[in-house]
């Protein structure tokens, strides 16, 4: 079974370009807006990459630490693939794709130690802050992985603690205190079709990829998380080249959050 779309796209790749005229390492225009839901969310942001739109919001709650980490706070990341954003998404319980998006974004934030979990502790073994990140695409025009990571990181940067009197949280009053954040990590997903590696896929490109690799990077270019997707394998050289490209692009992505 030949795929006329993929065959044609590969012939375009051979000429060194993509269907929309971009270079393989070019992202579409990225915009970041902070504080889009200030009344309800402790932190929020809206990110666009080309026509893809993703919003993220932070809710902070006081809860009990997990028994095995009594002096740490908690983080939970939830991404929901809204049917509003793509006719292919259905109503219903989370699909494996939305679970993957949630967990991949979670790992970029968690494994990079971007949030200082110890500083979220209020009283060891008894009380801690819990950060809940919820991510929603509003328009899926490809590359939700990178847009979701950008939106989540921007929302975390935007977040401020609500007032807490030791017993109860008062959500109607917000302090000026930001979350305890370290150096900014970044996620960059590299796509592969045939022998071509590229970033920031359009929906058509996403449909025909052989593999993808989402790479979470620390501020110093060390890798802190990885997720491979797609049905084809990757050689060690290919993985290395993808990491190289991700490191190069992460700088650009970090600038978007300055």
């Amino acid at each position: 079974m030949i795929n006329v779309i993929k065959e044609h796209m590969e012939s375009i790749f051979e000429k060194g370009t993509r269907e929309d005229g971009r270079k393989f390492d070019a992202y579409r225009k990225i915009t970041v807006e902070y504080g889009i839901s200030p009344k309800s969310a402790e932190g929020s942001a809206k990110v666009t990459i080309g026509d893809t739109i993703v919003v993220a919001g932070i809710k902070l709650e006081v809860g009990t630490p997990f028994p095995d980490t009594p002096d740490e706070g908690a983080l939970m990341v939830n991404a929901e693939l809204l049917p509003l954003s793509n006719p292919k998404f259905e109503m219903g319980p989370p699909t494996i794709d939305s679970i993957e998006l949630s967990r991949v974004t979670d790992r970029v934030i968690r494994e990079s130690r971007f949030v200082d979990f110890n500083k979220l502790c209020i009283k060891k073994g008894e009380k801690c802050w819990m950060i809940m990140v919820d991510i929603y695409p509003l328009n899926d025009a490809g590359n939700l992985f990178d847009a979701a990571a950008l939106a989540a990181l921007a929302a975390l940067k935007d977040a401020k603690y609500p007032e807490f009197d030791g017993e109860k949280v008062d959500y109607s009053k917000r302090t000026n205190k930001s979350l305890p954040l370290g150096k900014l990590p970044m996620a960059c997903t590299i796509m592969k079709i045939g022998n071509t590696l590229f970033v920031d896929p359009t929906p058509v490109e996403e449909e025909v990829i052989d593999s993808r690799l989402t790479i979470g990077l620390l501020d110093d270019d060390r890798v802190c998380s990885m997720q491979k997707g797609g049905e084809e394998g990757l050689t060690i050289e290919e993985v290395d080249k993808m990491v190289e490209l991700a490191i190069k692009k992460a700088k650009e992505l970090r600038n978007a959050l300055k």
Partner: protein
Amino acid sequence: MAYTKRFDGRKADEIRPIEAKVGVVKRALGSASFKTGKTWAFAAVQGPKDINRFQQDPEKGVLRCNYNMMAFSGSGERVRPGPSRRSKEISMVTGKALLPVIDLGSFPGAAIDVYIELVQTDAGTRCAGITAAAMALADAGIPMNDLVTSVAVGVIDNKVFVDVNKEEEDYEDGMADIAVAMSVRTKKITLLQLDGFVSREELKKALESAYGACEKIKEVQVKALKDKYKV
């Protein structure tokens, strides 16, 4: 104490400032963003979609509405994702509010899906959702004989206040809260829900005030739909 001056200083018949835009979700058939004060709703239409045999209507399409609050959009703690009884009821009355003006005859056996997402809330959420959904349906090219416009009005001490916000809704001396949706052109009501106590006269006054508010909100809907084609 009698409620005479509104918390945010508005006049009794004054609606909140509105930002409305159409065609914001390119992958949807039609879409709209509607923000009134701090309540912000997105609506998008997808379809026509196939549905299972039991839900189909052989003569015309079926309208399915889904209202959802984003987890961070509530007024206090995080809202657990997934449908709640409240959101299911709002989804249902939203559909009923829109149906009277829509012609789904071109889509027999199929469904037209309307999705409403709240990004931030400050009361009047189902009304904002319905108002956004009507714009999204028009943007989607679904045949309609009018737009539907919706607003919540509050009644206390025989006075009516249009487009109540959360502070007013929670007013401790008790404000009756009436959610109304209507086809402004025909002045027909398609959504009517009430919480609180009102006399018959108060109710009538409230509905007339709601109509006045809907006229103003409809102007915004019309402008948003036409602005998409501004040269």
